[in-house]
């Protein structure tokens, strides 16, 4: 067996070990890179930045623990931005398993900025029927959520006094691990002209670029890289920013492995 044949038959466990080391070493050494934010993330940041203090931002938790490493840092960075700018946060979710993640982030960041529940932010929770919920939110939020996550009537919360539908929301931010983002565009943007920013896992993000190109969404935050970009824009060095060196290392490794694999394939094919 020559060198090229051996190259094509590397034990997958060796590759796993190299990938493991490629991730763990930069994290242990606490290496950091300067992140240059992508245009679509800057657009998202600037749209939030443009909102006057007191405006309402609706954040939808459309993910659960399986996408937490990518979307939770994004959520924390967005909440930091909103509370820093004195924006009102209205959180809800279409993925019931993700609700506790939204609650954890909301409580943590609200506490940091001294925000008061019911006055500066509210957590509406979940209602079944994704499309029906989105359509009815465009008519009257109370038709869908007459109480918050803990059962408090929303009319008793000062934050909800003048908020009835998408017209009263400055920006809707959907954090997406599946196809719920498409539904936000189809039902909230197309029907009610809601201004939407989507943050998505890297698997979902490529499918959302056509919406950005068609101006159906005003910003797109894609994957851990997008989360790192947003963290750098709001000057919060969170897990996404700290994960970028490991991400870069593995990307270089994957490119090298693809090149070596192809060289091995073509060399052995020529021999046959």
């Amino acid at each position, binding site marked *: 067996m020559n060198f090229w044949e051996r190259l094509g038959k590397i034990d997958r466990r060796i590759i796993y070990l190299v990938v493991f080391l490629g991730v763990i070493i930069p994290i242990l050494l606490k290496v950091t890179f300067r992140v240059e934010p992508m245009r679509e993330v800057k657009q998202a940041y600037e749209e939030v930045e443009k909102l006057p203090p007191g405006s309402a931002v609706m954040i939808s938790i459309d993910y659960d623990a399986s996408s937490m490493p990518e979307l939770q840092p994004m959520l924390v960075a967005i909440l930091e931005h909103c509370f820093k700018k004195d924006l009102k946060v209205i959180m809800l979710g279409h993925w019931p398993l993700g609700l506790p993640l939204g609650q954890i982030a909301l409580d943590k960041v609200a506490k940091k900025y001294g925000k008061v529940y019911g006055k500066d932010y509210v957590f509406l929770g979940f209602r079944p029927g994704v499309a029906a919920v989105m359509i009815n939110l465009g008519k009257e939020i109370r038709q869908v959520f007459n109480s918050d996550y803990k059962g408090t009537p929303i009319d008793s919360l000062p934050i909800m006094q003048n908020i009835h539908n998408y017209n009263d929301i400055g920006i809707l931010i959907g954090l997406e691990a599946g196809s719920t983002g498409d539904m936000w565009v189809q039902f909230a943007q197309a029907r009610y002209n809601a201004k939407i920013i989507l943050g998505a896992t890297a698997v979902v993000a490529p499918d959302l670029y056509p919406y950005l*190109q068609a101006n159906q969404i005003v910003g797109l935050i894609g994957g851990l890289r997008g989360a790192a970009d947003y963290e750098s824009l709001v000057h919060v060095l969170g897990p996404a920013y700290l994960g970028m060196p490991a991400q870069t290392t593995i990307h270089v490794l994957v490119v090298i492995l693809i090149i070596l694999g192809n060289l091995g394939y073509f060399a052995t094919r020529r021999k046959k």
Partner: protein
Amino acid sequence: MANVIWTWIAAGLTLAIFSFLYKDNPFYKLAEHIYVGSSAAFWFIYLWYFDVKPKLVDAWLQNTGFEKYILIVPAILAVLMLTRFIPTISWLSRWAIAFTVGMGAGLGITGALQGFLVPQLQATLLPIWVNVSDKFTVNLGYSLNNFILVVGTIATIFYFYFSKEHRGGLGYASKVGITFIMIAFGASFGYTVMARISLLIGRLFFLLHDWLHLV
């Protein structure tokens, strides 16, 4: 203290799942079974507490008049769906399925047309000669971008035109189309690699930070 215990349990389950990378083993099987069991239990509870109870049981108890009695319709449809378990009357479940398909298709078609097809078509009708503000000089970057977008869209549509053999002009156009499709697949693959590595980073960060406190 509770947090510490849960962190150790989460770390143990993470390592048990990772152990499959070496080979299948009892620790992996244990973690897998815990995951499947807890997911099934969660969805059972979820369907009861978020769907059946508030939408049917509570609504029946709280409402009066028409709003109360209209609930008999979804209740009957729900029962009909369960007839799938009885072969002799399983055909009744088709009524419930027909209702669901009809509603889904109605919502889906209007949403797709209004929210996807028409706006995306509009976004493809672009000038391939874009002038800068003085109206005489061409903006090369925008023009090239629009040209690629228009050619890519048309060529990809040609690739999916199956009523005529892909020969001659149509053959060339479909080859351009498949090139664009391959580039899109490549971009998706790149993003997928990034996503999977992000998940690994997240888990290892949890082990090093929350569990071992090394970073």
